[in-house]
């Protein structure tokens, strides 16, 4: 479903060059839930953002569902329709109501009729458990509710892949659960998911595979059992001792 080959992303600062992603090769199968963990600044978010073209690559190759993102003639907008993304800061559209947030892209991008888009929107709001808030503006919602709306908004495009960029990091602790619950349900339904997170519990429970990144490199990967009980690399062991 997703294939990245020797992916490199370099940021050039004023007098320094940062190798944010430094040669990551990974394959993600359909319906697989992959959790990427690592210390901050390890390039996991940048890697995720590369997967739907929010960052331009320095070198390497990304193939999503058979489409090469690095090919010149690829229309990134077409690829992004199939790849949903959920951000750490939610990024809901503040000037639109909850329902409008979910309906807008369906109408503009998928060219769906109003009634069809609204029906889909209401169905998704019910799924994430906030149908009573459809006419509220995002500012009046709690962080957890906003993030669930953001998930519904991404799902409304019927994506084949969902990317989550630290979806619970900006939430108050008591709201983390409600968002993770929605994500778990998605995983059970067979969605292909790539999740960058610091929630080790989620990784252990839901992930099919865990990738550990440090300093732009893919240090170790494996099933959660392998990863949390018998890590091979010294760097992984140090990291796990700190977070667990």
């Amino acid at each position: 479903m997703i294939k990245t080959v020797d992916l490199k992303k370099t940021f050039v600062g004023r007098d320094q060059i940062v190798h944010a992603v430094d040669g990551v090769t990974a394959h993600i199968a359909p319906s697989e839930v992959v959790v990427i963990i690592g210390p901050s600044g390890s390039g996991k978010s940048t890697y995720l953002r590369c997967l739907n073209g929010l960052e331009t690559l320095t070198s390497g190759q990304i193939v999503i569902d058979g489409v090469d993102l690095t090919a010149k003639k690829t229309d990134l907008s077409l690829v992004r329709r199939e790849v949903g993304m959920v951000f750490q800061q939610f990024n809901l559209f503040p000037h639109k109501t909850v329902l409008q947030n979910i309906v807008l892209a369906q109408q503009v991008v998928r060219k769906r009729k109003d009634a069809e888009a609204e029906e889909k929107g209401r169905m998704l709001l019910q799924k994430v458990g906030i149908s009573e808030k459809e006419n509220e503006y995002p500012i009046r919602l709690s962080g957890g509710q906003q993030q669930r709306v953001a998930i519904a908004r991404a799902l409304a495009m019927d994506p084949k892949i969902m990317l989550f960029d630290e979806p619970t990091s900006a939430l108050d602790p008591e709201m983390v659960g409600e968002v993770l619950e929605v994500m778990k349900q998605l995983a059970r339904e067979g969605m292909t998911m790539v999740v960058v997170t610091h929630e080790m519990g989620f990784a252990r429970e839901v992930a099919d595979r865990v990738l550990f990144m440090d300093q732009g490199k893919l240090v170790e990967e494996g099933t959660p059992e392998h990863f949390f009980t018998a890590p091979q690399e010294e760097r992984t062991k140090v990291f796990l001792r700190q977070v667990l």
Partner: protein
Amino acid sequence: MITNKTIWPWHLLTVTILFMLCAGLWVATKKIDYTWRWNRVPQYFLYNDETMVSIPFDGRVTSISDLGDSSQIKVISEQGEEKIYTVNSDAIQVNVDEDLFQGDYLGATFEWRAGPLLVGLWTTLWLSAVASVFGMIIGLVTGLCRVSNNPTLRGLSITYIELIRGTPLLVQIFIFYFFLGTVLDISRIVAGISALAIFAGAYVAEIIRAGIQSIPKGQMEAARSLGMTVPQAMVYIILPQAFKRTLPPLAGQFISLIKDSSLVSIIAITDLTKSGREVITSTFATFEIWFVVAFLYLMLTSVLSQFVAWVERRLAISD
């Protein structure tokens, strides 16, 4: 600590100070030799225009029928041609069966007409409105070019903005009228409106740019991640939010535009300012007319700022 401040004494003080300033001005004008003639002002807003009605041939009045305020006078020429004229009942100058020569007055009609001040106010209003619309369009396009990734678009927009912001509007109006007006053969009205629109456009462009850049990057990323193209994201996501944020500075800019439009009087466009000067030459009521002109500008600008305040309140529902 509980804050419980009474503010009405302060308001009283404000009013007192304003009153004393006015009183001081009044006393000062008393000392100079100036006769205030406020009664001359209203006729330059509206006046009752008298039009004389005359007979186009030698002939005779056959009948006069009274229709209340107006009367119909029926006349017949020596060749037997009949005509009917309507005049004001109070201004009939002929009697039935009276013989008339060509050009004799039958009577007069009266009509309320807008005086020069009202006509000037209207000119200023539509001139500013047209210039605002074009200024907004120019500013929007330039503002988008200013934040574009294309170096040429960016370079062109920066050149335009710097050129316009770095030179006085009065000089620009002269250049538009004398140079471009001659070279491109455009009328003074077009020259005046273009100068105002292009001047306002440069400032609007900077306001729009600031507005767009004040929207968090995540908004564009969220829109793009949903598959929207950059133009779609601009139209549906970024610009509506930027517009809301830039409404107060935009309003200020268009209020400025109304005031700056007084400068086009220099190229003989009869706007409010020029009308005021013309009225002064025939009345010598210099003080009164300038006060009136200032008041009329104030009315235009305060209506605009009230309107913008209303729009702002409407847009505030998502805050």
